């Protein structure tokens, strides 16, 4: 048989977003793959250098359009460290609330896209329907369904509206049994297993070698979760388990994500109980003028900054729905960050495509790449 290169993408149903997977095939067998990223590059790191610390938050929502609040949290943690600001505890709980709801929403989005990749249309509709309920919750307190702009340096924008926690609990009550239903739809059928078992195997040492994190790493048997290993915000006060599977294949990633959503519900119930009983401020008291919302052109800002705000650097890493995201913010004493750098987990996960695609068939590419949960917005930034 003669070998040939085929392009999957940048406009292909398999690619969620704009990226290109070049595949060298011999008949049906994959001999080589070459992922090409960069179609969605917007220069977010460079634009951030020209914006106020708070204005960068609008870019964070657009970095990953299915997990905007996680990226806001990531950036906020790094910039607060760089600016030496301590947020109040209630704000930290509210951020955890955001992040865990966002994790469920992101995993539901992944579930909907993934099952469609393997040819199931019914679960797709269920996933999108249930994700919409979480978007409704987001809308009720952040004011938007997708681009939230909720967190601020030093806290969050506003407190929860009255009656929110009861509403959220009802959504959680509704979501819990839905995950069992998803399992019945997918795992209950051998067609799913025939399509996904022993596919896209990436063993733990390969994951570590290529920087692959998140559910892909946990499905390979390593219990590695930054929420447990290096707790940020208030995760050290919350009780949850880290999901793990041993199979290292597509089914394993499915099982890990389903278990993560159940654990997120467990975290959210604790957070909602805490929020009910601990009212308080949601924005830090010690904020410089230009970090509060009404900022104005600052005359002689160097004078102010020299007096009040020393230079600093901030580094944060959080367990984003896709893996370990990291941010580095350098504060050189201006009202804009001097340099912002992000590490996207999906970039590493996709870059390792050669490790988990070679040797499989062409028809296996959609399930395998679907199980990676590609979000091109954060790959290219």
């Amino acid at each position, binding site marked *: 048989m003669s070998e040939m290169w085929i392009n999957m993408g940048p406009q292909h149903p398999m690619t969620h977003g704009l990226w290109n997977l070049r595949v060298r095939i011999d008949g049906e067998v994959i001999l080589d793959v070459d992922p090409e990223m960069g179609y969605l590059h917007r220069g977010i790191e460079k634009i951030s250098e020209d914006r*106020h610390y708070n204005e960068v938050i609008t870019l964070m929502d657009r970095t990953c359009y299915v997990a905007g609040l996680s990226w806001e949290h990531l950036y906020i943690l790094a910039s607060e460290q760089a600016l030496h600001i301590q947020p109040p505890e209630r704000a930290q709980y509210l951020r955890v609330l955001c992040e865990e709801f966002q994790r469920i929403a992101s995993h539901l989005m992944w579930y909907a896209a993934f099952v469609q990749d393997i040819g199931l249309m019914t679960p797709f509709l269920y996933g999108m329907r249930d994700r919409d309920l979480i978007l409704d919750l987001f809308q*009720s307190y952040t004011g938007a369904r997708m681009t939230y*702009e909720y967190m601020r340096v030093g806290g969050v*924008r506003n407190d929860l509206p009255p*009656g929110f926690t009861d509403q959220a609990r009802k959504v959680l009550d509704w979501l819990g049994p839905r995950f069992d239903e998803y399992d019945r739809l997918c795992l209950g059928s051998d067609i799913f297993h025939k399509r996904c078992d022993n596919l896209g195997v990436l063993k733990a040492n390969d994951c570590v070698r290529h920087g692959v994190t998140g559910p892909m790493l946990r499905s390979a048997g390593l219990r590695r979760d930054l929420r447990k290993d290096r707790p940020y915000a208030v995760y050290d006060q919350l009780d949850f388990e880290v999901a*793990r599977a041993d199979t290292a294949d597509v089914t394993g990633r499915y099982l890990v994500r389903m278990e993560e959503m159940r654990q997120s519900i467990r975290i959210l119930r604790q957070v909602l109980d805490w929020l009910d009983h601990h009212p308080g401020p949601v924005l830090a*008291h010690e904020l410089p003028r230009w*970090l509060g919302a*009404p900022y104005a052109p600052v005359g002689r800002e160097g004078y102010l900054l020299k007096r009040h705000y020393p230079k600093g650097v901030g580094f944060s890493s959080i367990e984003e729905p896709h893996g370990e995201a990291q941010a580095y913010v350098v504060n050189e004493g201006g009202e804009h960050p001097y340099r912002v750098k992000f590490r996207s987990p999906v970039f590493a996960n996709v870059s390792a495509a050669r490790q988990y695609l070679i040797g499989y068939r062409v028809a296996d590419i959609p399930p395998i790449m679907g199980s990676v949960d590609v979000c091109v917005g954060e790959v290219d930034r």
Partner: protein
Amino acid sequence: MAEVSEPEPRNENPVLWVARPMATAARQFAKSLFRPSTIVYPYERLEDPRFRDRLEVASGKPFGVGHVWDNYRGVHALNIATCISCNLCAFSCPDICIEMVTVPGGDPKHPKKCPEIDYGKCSYCGFCSDACPEGCLTMTTRYELSTPKRSDMVYSPQKLYDVFRSKLPMNPIRLARPENEDAILLDPPLCIGCNACARDCPTECITMLDVPKPEAKPGEKLPKRIWKEPVINDSDCVRCGTCISVCPKECLFWGTRK
């Protein structure tokens, strides 16, 4: 423990491969016949009181108070009457889509300026309504903006005022403000008493007070200036920074009043 493994033993009967998921789907289908989860836009609309609570639609369970829609950040509403032309909305806009344009009503020396918003650029982040010290620029639940002309996307103050008068529900979320607000301080030796800050202050919280003219020592030349200095009333000040930007000698700056 959160160890996850395959939940059920494999069933090799091909009929069950299809039948088991189909049973789950059929149950959902029967439910959705009576309570569809979809909303047939534009014949039905999400802000319709019937859809106050989407969970009720999806699950058929009563849901209590649901005001999902009221907090939505949509098109702005501007109350021209209370706008003080402080420029804070334009300063705080990350997309630079707000321009301050002159509206009738001010005196010719101090024209009244109100925000004009280009919705082709706006990202609906809400920073402008957070920044507004008088609460005259708020966000409403209006979201339909499609128009055949690009120029229609630019909303003049009058058009924003029409949105305000249409009595749409306003986004009630107000920003939590930092408690120790910085104040505007004066560096007295630099001031020349030019009155520019007091003239342009939107809230008229700056008063020019006389300062004593010092006695010139022999051989020393007094600076050529008006012997007045601005005094800022912190309780009226909205911290817009207009005085800082108009000061010709850069003698005003942000600081904390001890």
